[in-house]
Structure formats: C-alpha cells, structure tokens
C-alpha cells in the first residue's frame, strides 16, 4: 500500500503541470507545426502538403526583421543589464530597511498594463512634447529631429518594459550570496574590485543567466513597442507574424515564422548557457 503510494505521488504532483504543458504548449505547438506546412488561402481552402518551401521563402523575405528583432532585443537586454545590475546590487547588499520599498518600486509599473504604459510613452515622446523640446534645447536631439518613431524609442521601450524581469532574478541571486564569502575574500587581501569580479559576480551568475533569458526572449518576440513607438522602418518579426496572421490571413507563413523565431532563440539560449554556465570562462575573465 505504502509502496504504491510512493509510486503514485510524484505523478500526482507532476500531473497539473504536465497536463498544462501538454495542453497549452505541446498541442498548440503540434498544430502550429502542421499549419506551417499547409498550402493555400482562406478562400480556396488550406491543405496539408509538407510544404517546407514556406520556411525558405519566409526567411528570405523577412531576414531584415529577424535581424532587427535580435539586435533590438540584444540592445535592450544589454542596457537593462547595465541599469539592472547596479540597482539589484545596491538593493540586495545596501538596501537595509528600504529593501522592500525599493523592490516594490521596481514592481510597481506592473500594476498598470503593459499596453497602457507603452501608450503613455507614445504621448510623452511625441514630436511636440515637453520632453522632446527639452532634449532639443539641450542639443541631444537635432532641431528638426524626433524621438518617437525611431530605433532609439523602440529599444528604450523594450528596455523599460522588460527591466523588472532583469532586476528581480539578479536581486534574488545577489541577495542569496553568503556574506561570509565576501568577508573571507577581504580577509585574504582582495581589493574591492577583485571581490566583485571574482566572488560576487560569479556567484550571481544564475541570476544573470535568468535575467538575460527573461528579458531577451519576450523582447525578441515583442511587437507592441515597434508598433507604437516605431515607424515602418522599425518593424520587428513579431509585427510580421501579427500581420501575416491577422491582416493577410497567411497562416502558414505566420506559423513558419513563429517556429523559426523559436528555433533561433533556442539556439541562442544554448550558446549563451554554454558561455555563461562555464565558470572557468568567468574565472579567466576575472584575471
């Protein structure tokens, strides 16, 4: 009896998660894969024909947007890391009694929806806004220039929207570091720089990996920022998928593009995990 329970219990615990994964991930994934191999149109009807050509055509036609998505997401991730790490570091190690308040401030923007926040930026940055006038007066924007509908605005929007995804895992990782490790390093005459590079940073790597993934993946697939803060010259692959699916009702191409985006991200994650996960590499950098 006890034996049987032991065998069943892990499955019972796994059950809900597994069912969720199968229903809402594997089944749609299978169907999307099937749709990507369809041929036809919605008026003439679609047919499943193993039409792999769609992938080649789609990649050919939308290389620019793929490149742009990876570039923008990469830039947003790098900026979010540059802003997020010091912030997470200070909150975790020097936050003191303000720690919870500061964390709350980081999460606070989440209380309004993502779309509304991005729309707010559209208004803040419009051509005749105070912000843009000030930037012009300071010489940061050319007199006939603009901020909205530029690459900068899209990357800034992505950074702003996904920043908390970077900060929270970094905070969790840095906060978990055993202070005794830092003290030991100082006892062994390490400089502050050495302590950071050889102890704090390597120990916070799990947070860095998680933060980068959580920022990069949604940013690469995003279409809202490019739609609202960009011009047609900033369209990302998410916009293409959206327009193929809903505007042209070209489901096979939309599905094929989604698959390629997923594949591309998986490959990049694999590479990143190899680099970031190898401690010797970090150690070598620290020297």
């Amino acid at each position, binding site marked *: 009896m006890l034996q049987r329970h032991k065998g069943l219990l892990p499955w019972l615990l796994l059950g809900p998660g597994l069912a969720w994964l199968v229903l*809402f991930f594997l089944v749609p994934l299978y*169907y999307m894969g099937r749709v990507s191999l369809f041929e036809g149109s919605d008026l003439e*009807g*679609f047919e499943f024909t193993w039409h792999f050509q769609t992938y080649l055509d789609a990649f050919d036609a939308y290389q620019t947007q793929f490149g742009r998505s990876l570039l923008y997401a990469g830039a947003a991730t790098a900026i979010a890391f540059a802003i997020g790490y010091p912030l997470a570091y200070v909150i975790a190690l020097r936050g003191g009694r303000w720690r919870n308040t500061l964390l709350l401030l980081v999460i606070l923007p989440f209380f309004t929806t993502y779309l509304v926040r991005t729309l707010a930026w559209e208004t803040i940055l419009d051509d005749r806004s105070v912000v843009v006038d000030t930037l012009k007066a300071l010489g940061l924007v050319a007199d006939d220039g603009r901020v909205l*509908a530029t690459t900068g605005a899209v990357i800034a929007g992505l950074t702003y929207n996904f920043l908390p995804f970077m900060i929270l895992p970094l905070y969790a990782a840095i906060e978990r570091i055993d202070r005794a490790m830092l003290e030991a390093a100082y006892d062994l005459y390490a400089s502050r720089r050495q302590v950071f590079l050889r102890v704090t940073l390597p120990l916070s790597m799990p947070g860095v990996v998680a933060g980068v993934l959580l920022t990069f993946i949604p940013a690469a697939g995003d279409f809202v920022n490019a739609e609202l803060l960009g*011009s047609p010259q900033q369209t990302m692959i998410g916009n293409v998928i959206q327009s193929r*699916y809903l505007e*042209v009702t070209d489901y096979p191409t939309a599905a094929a593009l989604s698959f390629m985006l997923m594949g591309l991200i998986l490959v990049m994650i694999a590479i990143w995990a190899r680099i970031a996960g190898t401690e010797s590499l970090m150690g070598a950098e620290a020297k």
Partner: protein
Amino acid sequence: MNQRDIERWIETEISRRRLLRQAGAGVTALSFASFLAACGDDDGGIEGGGGDQSADIPVIEKGEISDQLNFSNWPLYIDKDSPTTLDKFEREYGTKVKYTEEVNDNVEFFGKVRQIYDRGDSGGRDLHVVTDWMASKMKQLGYVQRLDKSELPNVEANLIASLKSPGFDPEREFAIPWQSGFAAIIYRKDLVGGALKSVNDIFDAKFEGKVTMLTEMRDTVGLVMLGDGANPAEDSTEPALEAIEKIEQAQKSGQIRRFTGNDYTRDLLKGDAVMSFGWSGDAIALQADNPNIDVFLPPEGFMLWSDNMQIPVGAPNAYTAQKFMDFVYQPEIAAGIAAYVNYITPVEGTQEALAKTDPELAESPLIFPSPEDLERSYIFRELSAEEDRELSDAFQRATGA
C-alpha cells in the same frame, strides 16, 4: 404543395443536411476542438473549404420578432443621444438590442469569428457590419444568410441608386449598406503651409516623416493609383502593384511615419502627422477638436467605400435582424444616425429629414456629397482570391511587415 412550400421544404432539407454534416464532424472533433479553441489555434477550422459557398444559403424564414437582438458594430458608429435609434427600435418592436462595439478592423474581426462562423455558429451575433470586400469574403465563404427582399421594403425604396448593385452582391441579397464614406486626405491647414493640390502631395519630401497612410489596402493603394493617373475601379493588378512599389519606396525613405487604422486621428491632433490618408466621417469630428483640420478631396479622385450589415449563419434572431435592417432605412431614423456618425448615409431622403433637426449639418458636403463629388469617387474593383492574395501580400511587405 405550392411552389413556395416546395422551396421552403428544399431549404429546410438543405439546411438540415448542413447541420447534420456539421454535427457529425463536430462530434469527432469536439473533445479536441474545445481544447484547441481555448488555445486559439484550431487548424480544423481553416483546412478545406474553397469556392463560392453562398449558393447553398437559404433565404431567411419569416418568423416572430424576438425580444433580443445582438448587433456587432464598429466603435462610435451609431447615435448615442436619447432617444437613440436602438431605443426607437425597442419602442416599435419591443426588442432590446444588445449593441457591441467589437469590430475594430475587418481582418481582425474576421480572425476573431472565422472559426465559429465556419462551424455555422454565429457566437450569438445577429448582425455584424464589415466593409465591402470583407462582406464579399463572408458571402463567398457561406458565412452570411440570404435576405428576404420582400421583408425589406424601405431598403428597396430608399437605398441610393449608386449602391444598389455592387459587384460582389448585385441583387443586395447578402449585404445592406450601413454607412459609406470617402477615403481621402485629411490634413492640418496650419502645418502644411499652403493649399494642397494633388494626392501626390503626400509624397512631397517637405513632409518627410510627417505623413501617415491607412493599413486598409484598398483605400491606400486606390488613392496612390489615382495619383498615378490609374483607375482603381477598373484597372488590372499591374498599376496597383506599381502603386504599392511607390508606397514601398516612400516607406523605405522614411517619408511615411506610420500605417494606421482609425488612430491616424491621434497623430493629426498631436501634430506628429501633418497629412494622412483618412476617412471623411472622422474629419467632421476632428474639426470639432481642432478647426485647423480639414479634408482634401484630391482632383484626381478619391475612394468610396461602404460598410455593410450582414446576418451571420446561425444567428439566433435572424428575422428580427432583417427587420432592423429595414428599420434603419427610414429617412428619419437614418437622419438620427447620420447626425451622430457624420458618414455618407446610403438612405435616400435623409437630407430632407435631417434639415428639420439640424439644418447646418444637412448642408455638409461630407455627409451629402454633391453629384460632382460622387462622380470623382471610385470603388476599388472586385478582386479574385488570387489577386487579393497577391496585392495584400505585396502591400503588407510595403508597409514593412
């Protein structure tokens, strides 16, 4: 049995067969379909089909007026001042109209309803409103019901002549116009500096990054074609593709700031855009916010479109929906709607009716265009499925997505 009964019998047999076929397919698909519907990715819905399926669609049967009607329309597309058109309908027939502003974009709405319409279910909708070409698509896919013309005497009497026989529905059996409008240029007088002369002013390098065009392909491509001296009502796809090429060049050079739906109004009000391809009905509302906004009807011509009421197959209150279609074709009712939405009304006699309540608006050339203006307006010609795909595809790429 007389002729009428035989027809009725055939119709019910056909519809029952349709129903059984769908039910049969439904049972096997049910367990999976419900999951997939939840994922929003039911490929069973998009596979198969093809050809014009409207031939099998029976005429709406006469019946009882129901006490509810579900009407799906675009935002801000009906009068809101009490007593509204919907109040008046309720007063006359005792039917409560549940009015939903759920159509923001033709293709988006199509994407939303395609799966359920394909199963012969309307999702509770009795009436929806979509633009000509989408109305044509809905008809060809067999998604909308055939109207009983004998139940539509007001439509018969008052539908304006120019809209009586469109290419996609020559007998007006599947779609009745709700409102029409022009697609033309809407601009900021204060920011353009001088009068506009041509459609092609939108390509003037002076306005780089300060113009927007519509995501609605037929409107944008049609206007650019007119600027090129082509005729969007008749020409082959060749000049349309040339126009798309021209749009693509302008987009790549940074001339066009955005491609928009209704939201170009925001760009104009903020001054981020100085001129936009836009819709005539918006202009009157925009002028109220900013008197510097004006409509420019280009001398080369401009586009005329209509939005149509249709009754989806499976509508629970089809007979009442048909009654409603006829109800809004009374000039006094149409005047109430026109006074609020400011689009071109398809109902003859509305101008006279509106003159009694709002004489100033009754003079507006945007609601009641002159015969000369109507002569310069073009309806984008009917495209075959193949042509539609070719042009939509090229146009989407030109817009950068």
